[in-house]
């Protein structure tokens, strides 16, 4: 009896602990604290530089006519998935091992990104985007932002929901978008000042810097 009681107590304690620091806990091996939460990091290499983002931006600004944001999104989703498979996941270190690409998670993360875009859209509106008119543009911007964060979302799923490690990537994208808002009110009368073009470009640049240098930050 006393033994049973004791194990119960331990179990309870571990549950509350994991609840305190992470959003959910994974199912496999709970025995060892270290193996349960091995350090997650991204290698400091030039291979994580997302060159495709620059290419997409180039097409968006110079090739596509009148800044076709929808087309850009169509380009972004597959290239981001490829980026995760070929570059980002390869350089993610989980404990001592490299992680393999989890095909199921790739798809789950796509849906997660789609789902995340709605709260992002709400956030953008709270920051001052028009409520009803131009909601299509706002939604497109939100989709861009969430798919720019796609590698981070995938990694959150893949690495035991350690939000703390990956939030810097989200911050970089938000920061890029935030700073790019500077050009919106200026009276230069350029076509690229139309909503949401500057913020799209800004968040791309933010994401580029984020994925290139994210591993050097905390």
């Amino acid at each position, binding site marked *: 009896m006393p033994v049973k009681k004791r194990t119960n107590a331990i179990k309870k304690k571990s549950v509350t602990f994991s609840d*305190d*620091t992470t959003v959910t806990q994974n199912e496999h091996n709970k025995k060892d604290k270290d193996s349960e939460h091995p350090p997650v990091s991204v290698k400091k290499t030039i291979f994580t530089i997302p060159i495709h983002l620059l290419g997409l931006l180039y097409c968006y600004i110079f090739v596509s006519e009148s800044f076709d944001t929808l087309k850009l999104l169509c380009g972004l989703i597959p290239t981001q998935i490829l980026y995760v498979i070929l570059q980002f996941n390869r350089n993610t270190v989980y404990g001592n091992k490299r992680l393999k690409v989890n095909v199921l998670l790739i798809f789950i993360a796509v849906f997660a990104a789609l789902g995340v875009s709605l709260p992002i859209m709400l956030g953008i*509106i*709270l*920051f*001052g985007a028009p*409520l009803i008119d131009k909601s299509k543009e706002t939604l497109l911007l939100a989709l861009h932002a969430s798919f720019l964060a796609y590698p981070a979302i995938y990694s959150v799923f893949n690495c035991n929901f350690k939000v*703390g490690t990956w*939030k810097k990537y989200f911050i970089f994208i938000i920061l890029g978008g*935030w700073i790019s*808002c500077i050009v919106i*009110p*200026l*009276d230069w009368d350029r076509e690229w000042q139309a909503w949401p073009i500057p913020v799209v470009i800004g968040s791309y640049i933010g994401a580029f810097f984020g994925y290139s240098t994210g591993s050097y930050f905390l």
Partner: protein
Amino acid sequence: MIRNRMEQLSIYKIRFLKFRQSHTLYVLYLTAVAALQFIAIAFFTKGFLLSRNVLDDINELKPSMYAANSSNNGFVHQQKFEKTVILVIDALRFDFVIPVNTNNSAYNSNHHNKITTLYDQFCKESVGKKQNNSLLLKFLADPPTTTLQRLKGLTTGSLPTFIDAGSNFDGTVIEEDNLIKQMYLNNKEVFFVGDDTWDALFSPFLSNHSIPYESLNVWDLDTVDNGVISYFNDNLIRSEEYKKKNSQWNVLIGHMLGVDHVGHKYGPNHFTMKEKQLQVNNFINDIINVIDDDTLLVIMGDHGMDHTGNHGGDSIDELESTLFLYSKRQNVWKLEDDHSVYNIDDLGSNYKSINQIDLVPTLALLLDIPIPFNNLGWPIKEIAVNELEQQFFSNITLDQLKKYQETNGLFPTGSDKYRMLENLFNTSKENYELSKEYQAYLLMLCKDLWANFEFPSIAIGIIFLFLSLIILITTTKLIPSIVVSQMVPIFVPLIIMMIFVSHLCLFSLFYVFQPPAFIEERFWCSLLATAIGITLACFSQIFERYSLKWLIFRFFGELSDYWSRVGSVFIILHAVIFTSNSFTIWEDRIISFFIATIGLFTMYEFIFVPNRESTSALLSGVLIAKERDSKKIRNFEEEVYSDCLPLTKIQRALGIYHSLILICCTRISSFITICREEQGDFCTPTFSTSSNYSINTIGILFVLMIVVPFCIQGYYNLTSSFQGSAPIWINLFLRLVLFGVFCLWGLNTVENYLNEPILEINMFKISLARSLAGVSLIALNFGWIFGPLCVNLGITRTKENSKENSATILGVKNIYGSQYFLLVLNIFMAVMIFSKPLAQISLYLMLNQILSVIEIIDMFKLKENIIGPVILNLIAYQHFFTTGHQATIPAVQWDAGFILSETISFPLTHIAIFLNTFGPQVLASVAIALFTLWKQPPLVLKPQTMLGRIVSNCGCLLIYNTVLCLSTFIWVTHFRRHLMVWKIFCPRFIFASLSLIVTQIIVILITIAFASGRLIRQINSFFWEF
């Protein structure tokens, strides 16, 4: 034992007196700093706001005498008309009088195609039948388009400067040469009826039979017009004397205000406008019918109106007005041969236009009176019927302009401009057809020049404001408040002494030497001496105790923590807005964006707080928690530490909720906007008369009126402070006053739907508004002085079924804050009375935001951090914009002035407009003390320390406003030749200065002097603790 008690009592009394004394000294010291800032603002304003050099010379040369004197090929000039009827229709925009195609997208059935007489006369008789007896022209006003300035321009022919715009409420007699004066000097009897601005400007020259009417009561649509019409009936339309050609008057002037007032009250699209315009049309018809051959009829507008019905700026809608000249005689005008210049397509945008000041020489020549000396206008081409006359008109105007140019000496001989003028003048003399170029160039030069800045004053203003900023930062943030309270007793006498010394020095210096021009007057010299005295006294005291190095070191030390950096970054970002006209235009949106960002920061902090230990206050909380764990302190001692513990999960959730409230309220209130004209298509105005008085708005108000007191109750319940006087105040007083406010504005709404105002409603409204204002501004604040404590004795059973009871005082934890917030509520109620319905919604949201911010700041233990005042000030600015204001002159809601009284009366009108405009700022300046007082348990801080912390937070608010003011000073000076300076930067600088002044006055008088001192004294004597 008794002796001991006596000793305690005497110690208590001494401490109490000491606190009172140092409190008074604190207030005096802050007043001195405020005085320094006011002087700085005064100097800058004096240097920057333009003033024009008015010459008092009078032209005495009549055109007929000029013709006789000069060798004009024997040309004889005589007055063309015996009598003149001038009808000014205020805000008669040009598109009101021309036919507008109903297919035009701008067409509106309420204000287009209603005044048809003018164009009919012009088109059918003058052009069609070639009678050449009427002339319709577009009449371009010069900005600022306020009635006083326009009347000055219309009669003197000169360009009134911006500083005059403020004196619309205080028009005084024009001294400079003008048309009315010339009429009077040339024995013409001038009868006047209408807008009393004329009476203020020209009273010595008008006949005793004139009847001026009150002009600024924009709610009254008919009194002035009916007065004008009956006066015209008596003296012109139905006058037997006039028919027999022996009427008393030579000039009959009427000034109708109906169209303008409808615009101000309802906007041009309201159906009332239609009725008004039809009335005007009939009236004009009547006049045209009875005019005889020897009478000249002039019908004109003084300015236009914008899409909201207001005016004052320089948009094309505000500038374009109408001029109509008419006579029964044929061929008095010579219309342009090419009739296509009178093109009415596209709302008449290509119609021939003349400058408003051109009317001055035109009328002078037609009536044979001397052209006013300061005139810069040019006679209308059409009034000369042949070439000889044309040449004569050119010559006489040219000579007048030349004489004016020579006399005022604005362009010294030898300068480039002078040579250019000479060239143009000489060519004009040779070929009269070129002489208009001389006038055009002179006019352009004068327009440029009456941007005449006084740079020494500007520099003094900027320097002293900067010095006051340094003093504020050092004494409120850098030097510990205990040291400041020790310094203050020396400060105050020293300041007074230094003011005397600097007066003595400055005056003796200028007794010996010639003072520079900008301080020639005693008054300004004395102000400068006062400023120098205050600055020297403050700096000598500061540097006596601290070295510059230490202060700089401390400055960066102060900025070392995360939240201070965030706060100062936002201050800098806000100040940087004024570097560009685009940012200044969009300031309302940018500020909402800033608040949302700060809300995001706090939310981030609440979500991820365990992973982040950089916030110093929270770090200390964690350390204490660790210490407590290691020492295993028992349960009852935990109470003491409970304030220093790291945030619990529930607290974090609550914090996230408060952050969301902050962000959401910001976004919701930012839907309310009046839109600057420059924001153009990117902004749809939601703060209009129709939306303010719509059923939806009133419905929302009704719901908020019921819900918001519950919200406040919720915040009180967080610390179980909803005790004692709080329920009475919130459930009874607040609800009653809010219900009264709701009735007041509900009645306004009803009135808006009525066709004609009912006198009883108006009387009832005013008495209701007065009693509400009396309750909220006087009675409740008087009641607050008696100290409504929000505590209660709570008795709980310690154990179930036992007879032992334990008593706790409920609400002790928030004893200061809960009471102080009742004062904030008083101010809130007062502001609500004077706010329009949509603005009231915004203010309700503001109250929630303030409470949420205070909770957030309290949870982060940032009570002394700069971030709190920064958020509060941002909220105040945001609600300035969302209560239907903009930093422009026409956006001032003058009609709010008539809530308390029907006529303009000091101080009722002024209080109403002040609280309407600066309500959010006043609310924020009072609420600032809550950062210190909210959830401040008694017996923890000494009264001195608490006062010091309040002053420090108030100092932050002042620092923020000073930085903004300084930034506008610098940038408005930098952009002084910018195209947009008078439209964007200058109003913003005036607004920043006024905000700083308002914040200073409210913070010192109400927050520190009145409320905080009294509150601390009362509660601490309650606990016998000093």
